[in-house]
C-alpha cells in the first residue's frame, strides 16, 4: 500500500501532498519536514530507496524518491509494493503531468495544485495503484476538464454580471452637481 505521495522542491516547500492514511495536520507537516531532511542529505548517484523516518511508521515503510531538476517526487510505501515498480510509477506520473500540462515545470504544479490532485486520483486510489496506462489517464483527465469548461461557459455570464454589479462604483454626483454649468440657452423672451 502507498502511504503518501509528496512532491516538494529543493528548499522543502510542499507543492503537492497526498496522504492515504490519516495523520493530523501537525503530523503531516512534521512528516514533510522529516522526509525533506532525509532526502536532501542524499548525494547524487546513490540508490533511490531510503528507510522511512520514525514519524511515518516503523521499519516496514520505505521511501522511494526521484529527483527531477528542482522537484523531489517521493512515494512512501510499505513492504507489499514492489520498489522497482513504484520507481516506474513515478516515471509514469511525470510523463502524464508532461502530457497534461505541456512541458510541465514547477510553476504548473504550483498554480494548478488541484489539477495535479485530480490526475493523481486517476492513478492511485486508497493507496493502491488504479491505472498505469498513459493514454487512458490523460484522455480521462481531458474529458473531465472539458466538462468543467462547458459548465464555466454556461454559468460564467451570471457570475460575471454579479461580480460586476458588486464592484460597480457609482459616480460621485454631489460634487459635480455643484459645479455643473448650465448651457447658455438663448433667451426665449422677446
Amino acid at each position, binding site marked *: 500500500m502507498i502511504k503518501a505521495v509528496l512532491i516538494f522542491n529543493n528548499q522543502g516547500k510542499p507543492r503537492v501532498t497526498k496522504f492515504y492514511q490519516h495523520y493530523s495536520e501537525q503530523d503531516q507537516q512534521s512528516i514533510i519536514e522529516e522526509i525533506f531532511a532525509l532526502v536532501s542529505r542524499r548525494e547524487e548517484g546513490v540508490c533511490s530507496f531510503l528507510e522511512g523516518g520514525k514519524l511515518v511508521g516503523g521499519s516496514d515503510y520505505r521511501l522511494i524518491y526521484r529527483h527531477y531538476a528542482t522537484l523531489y517526487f517521493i512515494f512512501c510505501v510499505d513492504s507489499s509494493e514492489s520498489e522497482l515498480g513504484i520507481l516506474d510509477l513515478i516515471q509514469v506520473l511525470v510523463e502524464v503531468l508532461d502530457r497534461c500540462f505541456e512541458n510541465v515545470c514547477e510553476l504548473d504544479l504550483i498554480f494548478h495544485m488541484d489539477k495535479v490532485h485530480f490526475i493523481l486520483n486517476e492513478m492511485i*486510489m*486508497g493507496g493502491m495503484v488504479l491505472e498505469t496506462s498513459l493514454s487512458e489517464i490523460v484522455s480521462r483527465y481531458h474529458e473531465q476538464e472539458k466538462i468543467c469548461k462547458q459548465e464555466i461557459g454556461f454559468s460564467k455570464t451570471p457570475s460575471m454580471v454579479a461580480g460586476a454589479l458588486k464592484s460597480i462604483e457609482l459616480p460621485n454626483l454631489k460634487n459635480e452637481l455643484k459645479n455643473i454649468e448650465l448651457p447658455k440657452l438663448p433667451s426665449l423672451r422677446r
Partner: protein
Amino acid sequence: MPTPIRLRDLIRNIRAAKTAAEEREVIQKECAEIRNGFREEDNIFRCRNVAKLLYVHMLGFPAHFGQMEVMKLVVSPRFTDKRIGYLGSMLLLDENREVTMLITNSLKNDLEHSSQYVVSLALCTLGNICSSEMARDLAQDVERIMRNGPAYLKKKATLCACRIIRKEPELIDNFIQLVPTLLNDKHHGVMLSGVAFVTEMCNISDEYTEKFRRSVPALVRMLKNLIMSGFSPEHDVSGVVDPFLQVRIIRLLRILGKNDSSSSELMNDILAQVATNTETSKNVGNAILYETVLTIMGIKSESGLRVLAINILGRFLLSSDKNIRYVALNSLLKTVHTDRNAVQRHRSTILDCLKDPDPSVLRRAVDLCFALINDQNVRGTMRELLIFLENCPSEFKSDVASNIVISAGRYAPNAQWHIDTILKVLTTGGNYVPDQTIPILIHLISSTASLHSYTVSQLFTAIKSNSLHQPLNQVACWCIGEYGEVLLTGSEYSDLVQPEEILKSLNSLCESHLSSTSTKSYAVNGIAKLANRLPTHLMPTIKRILARYGTSMNLELQQRSVEFSSLFNKHDDKRPGILERMPLFEKTEEERSYSESNDPAAGEKAASSAPAVNTAQQSALDDLLGLGDIGTGAPVATSAPAPVMNSSNLVRCGHDNNKPPPIAKRTPESERGPFSDPETTLRTIRQAASNSIPSFEPWCDDNLGMKMDFQKIDTNVLAINMTITNNSLAYEVTDFSFLAAVPKQLQINLAQPSSLSVSPQMTLSQQMRVNNPNKVALKMKCKMSYKLNGNPVGPIDKVIGNFPPSAWE
C-alpha cells in the same frame, strides 16, 4: 463584498511575500476573507474559496472551518463544485470524524448519477476515506457498479471494494462471486484492480487463499497472454507489455503458491518463461525479473528454478545501477535462511558491497554478511567486517560491533582467535561498543585459562598507548587486576614488566579526566586486587592511591575507596582471602567446544541443525543478551533478563569473593550452544519464557499484605508462593488461618504455612500448588482469619480473579 480573488492570484501574492511573516500575514488576511464568504453563504464563489483553502491547508495553515462548506459543495449540481468538494473532503476530512458521515447521503446519490464522471468522483472519495459505517451503507451500490458498470467505473469500484473489505471483512461475501468475471475482463485496468482485490482478500484471511488457489490456472493463462500478445501500444512501457499487471499477477501467484506444492507446480513453467525471456536492459524488465525471483523463492518450486533465481540475483548484484543492487541485496536477505548454500556463492560480491558509499546499500550488505557467516568462512568474513568497522559511518558502528561479538561467540574456530577478534573490536570500535559486550568479554577471558598471559599482555600494551576507549579500558583494568602477576614474570608475549609500571598504568587511567566513572571504578577495583598480586613494598602506594578517592564527589568512587581502605587498615588479615583470584563464573553456557578443536562431529551437527531452529534460538540469544538482532527477524517473547547482567554485578563487587556468585534464577538452558536437540531447545525457550510470570499482589490493607509469586513446575502445575506481611507497626498477628478454593476443573494443594504467627513488619509464607490441565482461567476464593493483638479479625472472604494470564495459559 468584493469578489473573492482567484486561486492563482492568491498564489501569486503568497509567492510575492518576501519573508515568512509577510506570507503568514497574506494568508491570514485571505483566510479571514474566506471565512466571511462562507458566513455570507456565497454560492457562486464557494468553489473558489474552498480551492484557496485547500492550498493554504497544504502549506500547513488551519483549515477546519472549511469542512461544512465542503459538504455544501458536494451537493451542488455543478460538476466543478462537486469536484472541488470531493477533493476537499479527501484532504480535510478523515474517517474518524463524525462530519464525514454527512457525506454518506450525497455519496449514495452520486453513485447513481447518470454521468460516469460524477460516479467516479464518488467512488474515488469512498475509496479514500471510507469508514466502517459508510462501508456497510454503500457496499451494495459499489457491488452494483462492479457488476454492471463500464470498465472505467468497474476498476474504481473494485479498488473501492478493497478498502471496504479492509474496514469490514464480513462484507467479503457480497463481492466474492464477482471475482471470476473481473479476472476474465479484457480491460487491463479491470484486471489490475481484480488481481489487487484478490490479493487483499488473501491478506485478510488464509481461508480465502485456499479458495483462490482454484484460480491459479486462470492467472497463469492471463500472464501467458500478456507475454505472448506482442506489441500493444496502449499498454507498452519501454518495450514491455503492461509491466504493472505482470508484476501484480506474479505477486499474487507467490501468495497463492506459498506452502502448496500443487499450485507451485502449475506455476513453474510460466515463471521459467518469464525469467528467461524478459529484457533486462530497462528498469521495467528488471522489476518483473525481481518479482519473479521473489516468487520462485517464496513458493515450493523445483530446485533448477531456484538456482536460476539465485543466479539472476547474482547478476543483479554486479549491475552498475545502484537501485538494482539494493533490490538484489534485499531479496538475498529474505532468502538467505532457506537457501543458504546458494547465496554463499555470491559471498565475495556481497563483501565487496561493503565498500559502497551508499548508506542504504551498506546497511543491507552488513545484514547479509552477518547472516552468511558460518564455520568455514568465519575468518575471512570477520576480517572484512573488522576493516569495515574501522571505516564505516558512525551510525553503523555500535550495531556492527555488537553483531561481531555475537557472531564471534558463535562461530569462533578457537579461543585465541576469539579473544583476538574481540580485542580488535574493542580497539577499533572505540566508544561505540555497547556496554553489554564488556561482561561477555570478561567472562570469556576468565574461562580461557590458558590464554591469560596472552590476553593480559595484549591489554597492557593497548592501554599503554593511552587509549581513550572506555570499554577497552574497563576490560583491561579488570584483567590486569585479576591476572597482573603474569606480567611480573614475563612470558613469550611480553617482556618483564616492573610492578611499578603496572600500578602506574592503572593509576593513570584512574586519574585521567577522560575516563568515565565506571572506568575509574574498574580501575580502583583493579588496583585493590593488585595488593595481593604485586610485591608488598608497593602496599603503601596502593593504600595512598585508594585513600585519595575517599573524599571524591562521586558516590561510587567514594564508597569503593572508603571500603577498600577500611579493609586494608582494619581487616588486613582477611584481605588475601577476599582479594584472591575469582573463581570461574557459574557456567551460563554449556561447555562450548570450538569447532576446530577436538570434535569434528559436533561441527557437522551444527551445520545440519534446522535453520529455523537456529533462527529461533539465535534470536532468543539475541533477546536474552539484549544485543539486537542480526536481521533474522524472528522475535521470541522471552522476558528473561540477560544472565550476563549477573556477571556484571559480580564484576562490580569484586571484593565479595567469598560469597558464591548469585546463580541466575532464569533457566539459562535456553542459551545452549547449537549442538543440542532442537525440540528440547524450543521447549526450554518456552519454559524460560513462562518462568517469568510477574508476581502479583491480590490484596493489601492496614494489617496484612498478601503477595504471590509464581513458578511453573510443569506445563499444568503452577506453584504459588504466597507471602503474608504483617503491615502493622506494633501488633502481633497470631492464629493465622488461610483457606482457598478454586473452580471445578482445577485442583489445589495447600502446604503448611511457615508459621501461624507473624511479628510486626515480618512475613510468613505459604506454598500452594495448582493443577490446571485444561488451562482454564485461574480464579481463587480465599478465606482468611487471624488474631490481631488478641482480637479476632475476619473471616475475610476474597475472590481473586485477576491473576496474570501467563500464570494459567
